[in-house]
């Protein structure tokens, strides 16, 4: 591989894996967007669900989101990271085997997801739906990626770490932390598990993960890519390297705190909501600093935008980053959130980021890379330009339709009359039917965007066809210039670690221990200052040494990220669930209701129905008393949802007779004319998995749900008895159905929703 000379060595980069990731990203991108167009069509036309379980909205929407996030952007991100890192550190990727394992492992996971999600195998948490064996596979492949990356840094020949590498390091570490915590589960079978967190704890952990999946999977790596590829494409250095450093540390430190803004006006403790709002607003500054830094890099090169599709895509991508990061904090203000949350406005916001920022940055990078990876000019610049305009019009159509739809939904569903005592639009379906034409526009916008990506695929295929793929190379001096771990035991790192330990002892300890922690803190500070004075070193030098060593730098980054996570998560996760939780506590589900809940999760009902009545007039008038923490405390996973295509179900139990639900699930339009909900005919023929219930209840008990100890036979008998009672209840309505059908379990679950009891009464009972 490397042709050594007397003083210099030629390094050939591993660009094969870059080509593989580029190809995979385009392929999965088209698949993900195609599914996106289908689910958009389903929202306009219920017939597009085809009465088939594996093609219903609830199962396909997770496939769409996972495919776009992890398959399209994931593969694109790996391509960009591997390409730029090798060149920035002047070293070939450390291991061809690890690179291949990373690529094929990731594709295996995506393929498995594409099979399991339509089959209804889901954990029931947004962007975290994959079943537990795949969660483990993701963790393993991520470790392989991390090993390969950090090993490459350890072999680098460039002593300094460019800011793009910082963003990559933050991505690798933070995604690992977030993914592992949010996917902690206890299996009940090879394809099913319950998350260890429940209710408000699960909601908080989920959005700590969900928000930061956006931050550290869809943003930081792409920012790294921006800081590398934009200067390359513009032919000039980044506008302000100083600003990029501030951008990095501010973003990494702030982003992790903002998760609770997904749970505003809910039963999440108020102090957490305030924290989420505060940090979301502060995010304006670094996000716009980074956006302006990117755009100003094009200073003096604006004339190139006319001809160069790469710069067009980058400029538009960075602009969308600016718009999405302006909108995000705006929607985190409680009053704005009251209007936007649970509506299509959120969908518009997400797509302005995913299609505009991620999609356009990906396209720009692919068009820039293709001629270099295949050593041939791009097949057609005109086609690339056409892709740009198709994509831009597609996004604008999509996003504008969703803004109008979202604001209409928000206004209609919260509108009141008679001095705020009566709902102006009591029928939820009024909001659905009023916005239906916008769903058609949305599908059209998505189709245009997808058409643009077909053009990209064709353009790159024609560029690569018949061309000989090439690997880039660089000549540099031997030996390697830097070692990653050299600075770990240097004075600044040791003092920093000791200071953190002392602060923790001071903060977490009581009495004498806390006092000792405080004394230790002062002693360490004094020692560090004395040491610095005596050695004649400057803080600046110490910091620079840290930055030139990837390991201590990574530790610093992890500390910055973890502070926010720990402050948010620990107090909520450690609360005693047996204590009074706003006066009410959920009554655990019976075995049949639990089976029904698993069906609810399998069908992805949470994609359209929330189970959380917010502390807002419109919500309370429509659905009843606002939700309390205790009412969902035993829900593993929580099902508060993030979008109301249909009404909230938090207090659905007892609202309608069981016959209503039976007929509604068979054909929603028979009960609710104008509904876009799919039919669920298979629930009337498929059998409930009674045999799995004892194991499921045993796992629930381990998770802290107060189920009494019962023999398996008794659990099964309870479930069958409740199903039998439901059959008897349905018979007067002319329904003849066997007692083991899934529809009965689902109805049992729906009729239980919102059933809770005062804490004092529960405490006596247990």
């Amino acid at each position, binding site marked *: 591989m490397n042709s050594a000379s007397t003083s210099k060595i030629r390094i*050939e980069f591993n660009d094969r894996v870059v080509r593989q990731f580029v190809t995979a990203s385009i392929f999965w991108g088209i698949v993900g967007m195609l599914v996106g167009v289908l689910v958009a069509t389903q929202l306009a036309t219920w017939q597009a669900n085809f009465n088939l379980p594996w093609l219903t909205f609830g199962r396909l929407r997770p496939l769409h989101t996972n495919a776009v996030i992890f398959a399209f952007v994931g593969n694109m991100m790996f391509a960009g990271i591997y390409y*730029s890192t090798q060149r920035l550190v002047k070293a070939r990727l450390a291991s061809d085997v690890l690179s291949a394992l990373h690529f094929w492992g990731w594709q295996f996971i995506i393929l498995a997801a594409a099979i399991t999600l339509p089959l209804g195998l889901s954990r029931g948490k947004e962007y975290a739906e994959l079943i537990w064996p795949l969660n483990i596979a993701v963790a393993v492949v991520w470790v392989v990626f991390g090993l390969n990356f950090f090993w490459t840094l350890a072999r680098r020949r460039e002593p300094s770490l*460019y800011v793009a590498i910082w963003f990559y390091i933050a991505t690798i570490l933070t995604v690992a932390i977030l993914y592992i915590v949010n996917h902690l589960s206890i299996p009940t079978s090879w394809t099913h598990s319950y998350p260890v967190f429940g209710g408000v704890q699960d909601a908080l952990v989920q959005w700590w993960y969900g928000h930061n999946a956006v931050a550290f999977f869809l943003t930081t790596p792409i920012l790294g890519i921006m800081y590398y590829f934009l200067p390359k494409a513009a032919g*000039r250095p980044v506008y302000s390297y100083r600003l990029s450093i501030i951008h990095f*540390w501010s973003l990494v430190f*702030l982003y992790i705190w903002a998760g609770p803004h997904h749970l505003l006006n809910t039963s999440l403790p108020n102090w957490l909501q*305030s924290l989420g709002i505060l940090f979301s607003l502060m995010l304006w500054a670094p996000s716009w600093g980074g956006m302006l830094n990117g755009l100003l890099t094009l200073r003096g090169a604006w004339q190139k935008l006319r001809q160069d599709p790469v710069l067009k895509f980058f400029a538009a991508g960075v602009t969308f980053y600016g718009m999405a990061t302006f909108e995000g904090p705006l929607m985190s203000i409680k009053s704005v959130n009251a209007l936007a949350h649970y509506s299509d406005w959120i969908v518009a916001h997400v797509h302005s980021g995913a299609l505009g920022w991620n999609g356009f940055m990906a396209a720009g990078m692919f068009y820039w890379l293709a001629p270099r990876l295949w050593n041939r000019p791009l097949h057609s610049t005109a086609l690339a330009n056409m892709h740009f305009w198709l994509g831009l019009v597609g996004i604008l159509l999509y996003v504008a339709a969703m803004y109008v739809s979202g604001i209409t939904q928000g206004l209609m569903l919260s509108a009141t009359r008679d001095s705020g005592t009566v709902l102006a639009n009591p029928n939820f379906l009024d909001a659905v039917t009023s916005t239906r034409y916008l769903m058609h526009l949305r599908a059209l916008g998505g189709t245009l965007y997808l058409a643009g990506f077909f053009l990209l695929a064709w353009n790159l295929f024609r560029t690569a066809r018949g061309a000989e793929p*090439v*690997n880039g190379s660089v000549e540099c001096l031997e030996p390697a210039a830097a070692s990653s771990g050299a600075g770990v035991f240097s004075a600044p790192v040791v003092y920093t670690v000791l200071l953190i330990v002392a602060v923790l002892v001071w903060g977490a300890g009581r009495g004498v221990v806390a006092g000792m922690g405080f004394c230790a803190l002062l002693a360490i500070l004094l020692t560090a200052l004395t040491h610095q004075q005596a050695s004649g070193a400057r803080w600046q030098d110490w910091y620079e040494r840290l930055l030139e060593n990837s390991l201590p730098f990574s530790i610093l980054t992890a500390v910055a990220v973890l502070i926010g996570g720990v402050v948010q998560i620990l107090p909520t996760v450690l609360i005693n669930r047996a204590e009074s939780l706003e006066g009410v506590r959920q009554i655990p589900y019976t075995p049949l209701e639990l089976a029904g809940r698993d069906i609810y999760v399998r069908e992805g009902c949470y994609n359209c129905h929330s189970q959380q009545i917010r502390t807002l007039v419109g919500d309370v008038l429509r659905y009843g008393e606002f939700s309390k923490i205790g009412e969902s405390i035993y829900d593993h996973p929580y099902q508060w949802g993030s979008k109301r295509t249909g009404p909230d179900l938090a207090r659905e139990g007892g609202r309608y007779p069981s016959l209503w639900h039976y007929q509604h699930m068979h054909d929603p339009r028979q009960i609710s004319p104008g509904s876009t909900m799919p039919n669920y005919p298979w629930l009337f023929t498929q059998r409930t998995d009674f045999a799995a219930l004892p194991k499921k209840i045993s796992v629930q008990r381990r998770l802290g749900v107060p189920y009494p100890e019962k023999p398996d036979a008794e659990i099964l008998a309870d479930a069958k008895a409740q199903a039998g009672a439901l059959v008897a209840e349905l018979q007067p309505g002319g329904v003849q159905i066997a007692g083991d059908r899934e529809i009965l379990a689902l109805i049992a679950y729906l009729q239980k929703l919102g059933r809770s009891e005062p804490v004092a009464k529960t405490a006596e009972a247990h």
Partner: protein
Amino acid sequence: MFRRILVEEWQRVLTLISFTLFFSVFLLNVIRVLRMPKKEVQRLGSLPLSEPPVTKPHHVPHASSL
């Protein structure tokens, strides 16, 4: 009045602590960045452009289009 709004529950103090913590980190960062030598900033900023042009890339031995 402000105390009542902000410290109604003890945990709410955390928002103030968190803000102070972030602002301190931000301030230190800005000071450090402003004190960076100009030459060093220019060198770091030019890293993506400092790669020597690859005039004759190595051909991949396999004929695969990947």
